């Protein structure tokens, strides 16, 4: 077995070493997301969006065929970083996209931008890259972590909430969210809880505290599976109608079917809803539903835009991938049919976007659907953006 193992190891290294020297005849995109583990459904949604976007453009950008290499970050920063290095150094990709989690992005960005490869972020909102660490090779189709919470703070002010409780996971994105919310919320914060992330699944102690506080509303940020757990336990404690929930990112098309009745009545502010009236969006949602038998999430929507943004860059230089400055200039123009309607990038190469109030209601077919109620913030820009020195 030892010889075979050594041979296997050697073969692996040879396989890694020999990369096709055809880098210029196709557009290579690396896509880093979470494909295994408890939140793999988000990664799957993003992957579906990539495939749909490519199909809509005939799987060609700037006349060249497109190849996508999907990598799994296992929700771990150092794994994401290793995959980023592999994509850039071994597979020699022209673009890297994806990134659900801020901490994975924080660890992975440097190897990509240092190698002068374009990073087109499709979700993670780490404010470092929106602000002080903005970079000519960093583009985003999402937002900064403080923007949705700021909109929620604004919404809670509008609704007359004067005493609120805040709860989220104890990690950078969570703390960013609470901070962003606190900056906008004008009332009194009667309690703050940071739960062990991502281990803690049982929120009984925190929910008891909420029940015994005199809060009029609870602001919370729990993405993915944690959001479902928190809302479910909150409702089991009978608090749903007593102290309303105000969330960011907890309710999306993945959690809605699992939450069922529990999701109805939770307030949320978000960057995109499936019912937005723009033509590109209608087409995106309809085709997504037809092909994958589910409604896309905002993760998928942002990914769809990211792939289109990359395509606009490649088209702008007519497929000459060596012309990095040209690609950059073309992408900055943000000349895409975005699912969010009129789409423009700020000088920090992150979108300037509208933020909507969303609500979940029972759908006519017996299921549930998420609808847009109103626009809370127009042309929102992250508070961190002013720290970016780029023009």
């Amino acid at each position, binding site marked *: 077995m030892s010889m075979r193992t050594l041979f296997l190891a050697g073969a692996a290294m040879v396989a890694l070493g020999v990369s096709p020297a055809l880098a210029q005849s196709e557009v290579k995109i690396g896509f880093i997301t979470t494909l295994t583990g408890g939140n793999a459904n988000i990664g799957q949604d993003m992957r579906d969006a990539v495939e749909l976007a490519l199909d809509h453009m005939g799987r060609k950008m700037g006349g060249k065929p497109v190849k996508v290499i999907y990598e799994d970050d296992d929700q771990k920063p150092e794994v994401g970083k290793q995959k980023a290095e592999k994509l850039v150094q071994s597979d020699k990709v022209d673009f890297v996209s994806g990134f659900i989690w801020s901490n994975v992005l924080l660890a992975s960005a440097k190897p990509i931008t240092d190698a002068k490869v374009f990073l087109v972020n499709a979700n993670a909102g780490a404010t470092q890259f929106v602000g002080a660490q903005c970079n000519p090779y960093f583009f985003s189709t999402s937002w900064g972590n403080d923007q949705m919470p700021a909109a929620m703070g604004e919404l809670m002010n509008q609704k007359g909430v004067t005493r609120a409780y805040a709860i989220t996971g104890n990690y950078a994105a969570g703390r960013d969210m609470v901070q962003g919310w606190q900056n906008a919320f004008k009332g009194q914060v009667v309690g703050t809880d940071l739960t062990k992330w991502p281990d803690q*699944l049982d929120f009984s102690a925190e929910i008891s505290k909420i029940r015994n506080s005199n809060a009029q509303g609870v602001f919370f940020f729990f993405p993915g599976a944690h959001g479902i757990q928190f809302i479910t336990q909150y409702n089991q*404690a009978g608090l749903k109608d007593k102290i309303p929930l105000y969330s960011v990112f907890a309710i999306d098309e993945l959690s809605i079917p699992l939450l069922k009745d529990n999701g109805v009545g939770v307030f949320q502010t978000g960057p995109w809803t499936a019912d937005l009236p723009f033509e590109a969006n209608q087409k995106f949602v309809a085709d997504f539903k037809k092909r994958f038998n589910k409604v896309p999430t905002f993760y998928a929507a942002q990914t769809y835009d990211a792939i289109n943004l990359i395509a606009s860059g490649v088209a702008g230089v007519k497929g000459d991938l060596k012309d990095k400055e040209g690609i950059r200039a073309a992408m900055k123009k943000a000349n895409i049919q975005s699912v969010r309607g009129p789409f423009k990038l700020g000088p920090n190469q992150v979108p300037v976007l509208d933020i909507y109030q969303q609500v979940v209601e029972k759908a006519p077919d017996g299921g549930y659907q998420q609808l847009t109620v109103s626009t809370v913030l127009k042309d929102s820009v992250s508070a961190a953006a002013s720290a970016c020195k780029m023009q």
Partner: protein
Amino acid sequence: MILFIEQILNGVQIGLLLFLLAAGLTLVFGIMDLVNLAHGSLYMMGAYFAAVLTKLTGSFFLGALLALPAALLLGIVVEVVALRSLYSRDHLDQVLATFGLILFFNEAAQLVFGVAGMTIPLPEALQGQIQILPGLPYPTYRFVVVAVGLICALFLYWLVARTRVGMLIRAGASNREMVGALGINIARLYTLVFGLGAALAALAGLMAAPITTVRVGMGENILILAFVVIVIGGIGSVRGAFVAAFLVGLLDTVGRAFLPDILTLFINPIQAASLAQGLSSMLIYILMALVLVVRPAGLFPAPGR
């Protein structure tokens, strides 16, 4: 005051779930000298079985009831196929082999049940709250968890202290060779004990599932806590696991509940919350280290160890 009682109840509920998981673990280690990291996978599979069966039968009670024998079967299969050969090995080999089993189970579960995870909807009767005291509504379902946990604890006490099988279990924990020498079919005893442990783990998993949803990897986090519990309680001792599970559950809950407020007196709320969470995570390990320094074999070590 009400808040304090409520938090105590929370701690008790968490403690009892932990006890269900730890009891199986300590029995298996005590009798068979087997370190089974895959115990957390049995927890997860119990939850998955219950979720699938609840969907098929439309009833949570039926789903839970049927999931238990399914998990028992799975436990027996795992024991016969993978674990039999590990009994004679040293603990390190057992740790590594069962670690490999965890990896396998997690990926297999994802392939079989899909990436989305599952939820178990509670029947109407269990969705409300019970007024335990005036002004203290407590989720009905968590109350049920406490009740089931206590019933199981009593059942285990009866089994271990008052039946012949229990006597064999206690004897095996003290001196395995002697039990074998006295003519007892050791292999069958082992399989029985492992099956029991698997059923307990599955019960813990399916009870936790309506609260925490069913997902891949749900067993790992609680597994470490279970190990801490059995080390504090004393390996092989169900009574020790009971006491230790309570200690750990209460410590965890009280830490989470009151530390942030105490720390907010000194630093700003977000920093206080962050520090409090870090501290309360450490408290359990500090407790274990303290116990081991004072009583290196745990609180209630099986006699003869």
